[in-house]
């Protein structure tokens, strides 16, 4: 194993200097997710402007305890989502999920995923996929709640 295949520079950069970290006001929904195996946690807030699919994501803020992968992934998530419509963001989220489930077989679409393409290497390590997805699941859950759809968590 090349350590670098998992820990690409982009990931290490986001880990060392996370973007949009810290919980902010105002927000429409806040969720708290846990990775039961390692105890990693994320609290995540979403602020929307508008309703349904067309709503615009005006802020995503978070506080997280976890490994470099989960921290970097939260940072990348916020970069990607803030400013998008819910519809656009959901598409990105689906793309990221497919990438993480691809076991390194999928050629990620950099147009859509931007920095998140760096996680392609992580998808080869099943034990770490949950780390990468933790904040994304939390975001999906929070967004569903903000839209008034109740529990959007698919676990």
């Amino acid at each position, binding site marked *: 194993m090349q350590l670098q295949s998992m820990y690409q520079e982009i990931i290490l950069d986001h880990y060392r200097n996370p973007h949009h970290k810290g919980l902010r006001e105002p927000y429409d929904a806040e969720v708290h997710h846990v990775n*039961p195996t390692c105890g990693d946690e994320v609290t995540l807030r979403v602020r929307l402007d508008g309703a349904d699919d067309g709503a615009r994501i005006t802020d995503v803020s978070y506080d997280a305890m976890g490994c470099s992968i989960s921290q970097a992934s939260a940072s990348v998530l916020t970069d990607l989502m803030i400013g998008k419509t819910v519809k656009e963001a959901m598409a990105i989220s689906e793309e990221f999920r497919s990438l993480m489930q691809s076991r390194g077989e999928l050629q990620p679409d950099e147009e859509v995923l931007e920095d998140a393409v760096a996680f392609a290497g992580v998808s080869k390590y*099943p*034990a770490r996929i949950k780390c990468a997805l933790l904040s994304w699941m939390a975001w999906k859950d929070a967004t569903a709640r903000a839209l008034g759809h109740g529990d959007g968590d698919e*676990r």
Partner: protein
Amino acid sequence: MSFDVDRIRKDFPILARTVREDRPLIYLDSANTSQKPQQVIDAIDDYYSRHNANIHRATHQLGEEATEAYEGARIKVAGFIGTRDESEVIFTKNISEGLNLVAYAMGNAATSGPEAERFRVGPGDEIVITEMEHHSNIVPWQLLAQRTGATLRWFGVTDDGRLDLDRIDELITERTKVVALAHQSNVLGTINPVREVAAKAHAVGALVVVDGAQAVPHMPVDVQDLGVDFYGFTAHKLCGPTGIGVLWGRRELLEILPPFLGGGEMIETVWMERSTYAPPPHRFEAGTMPIAEAAGLAAAVDYVTGVGLDAVRAHERDLLGHALEAMAEVPGLRVLGPLETANRGTAISFTLDGGDGREIHPHDVSQVLDADGVAVRAGHHCARPLHRRFGINASTRASLYLYNTRDEIDALVDGIRQAQKFFGAA
């Protein structure tokens, strides 16, 4: 028929051995436990020799491989029983644990949150089982009734060994909370009309729990299609290892079913005072699971799927017809359960008269057979109430599986006649 029993027999190393004084083994006790093909033995060996680690918990390569073996088995089992959602598949140590899991989790509903309301049972509520159940589908419900004050009721069995559905409307009522029954009887071979009973039960809002221990090894089973809520089976009767069973449950129900065994990775977050629990299936899998056994079960599923359950069934039906015919010709032999092959599996239990009106005890029958290398089971086969229903304490049971042959059945019948000679009036 493309089914080649000789080729299949070669897959089972134990069938090459001899017993007692050098007699070839004739194994007619598969309803008790099946033999294992080399493929299953190898899968377990390979797991321990190359991939062993604990699962879910490890970030190293062995941990990944072990997790893949275990979770891969779950996906394989899900497909095998007709569900696409592998999180509906819970691994247990055997089907007995699976049935207890449902009964205890229902008991725990009393002190769980309102989401578990659906599972609560108490005084005035009724649990319905049948008289042909294995003890593993009787005692857990007796214990649940005892803990909660609910009432246990049961279907009777007709003289020809079928479920007596005449009183179904009296039995399954608004008071019924759960109906638990075998898909196939381990004594009579009877295949029960599960779909029909499930429809009645659902009409009154009761849960339906099915004991598929004797069905899954012998026929294609589709749990969705059966329309039941919980369905269990056990690997060791399916060419698989000991130490592992399966409980399938509908996702919506598993989501709200309270936990049973506590510990290990079934949790979400643990504080000293209290815990929250993981989503299914992990909520129901406490402690280190039978991992090597899951690898073995996956190999067993591959094996029987490879042979084809339809082919197995056709072969067994041929054997069964032959056996029922040959046994009908033995004077004083009484088969318990249906005498025709329709809706009937390959467990053939019988009593034997010595010709002097005195019954030859199953222990004695089986001992004579054993002396010839023929392995059958004697006793009540964990279905004492069913035996009492037929006025007896015990029976001799021959049970067939994919590796058996017509010749073996002829040896069985020869042995039965010998027993009659040895103990009988003749």
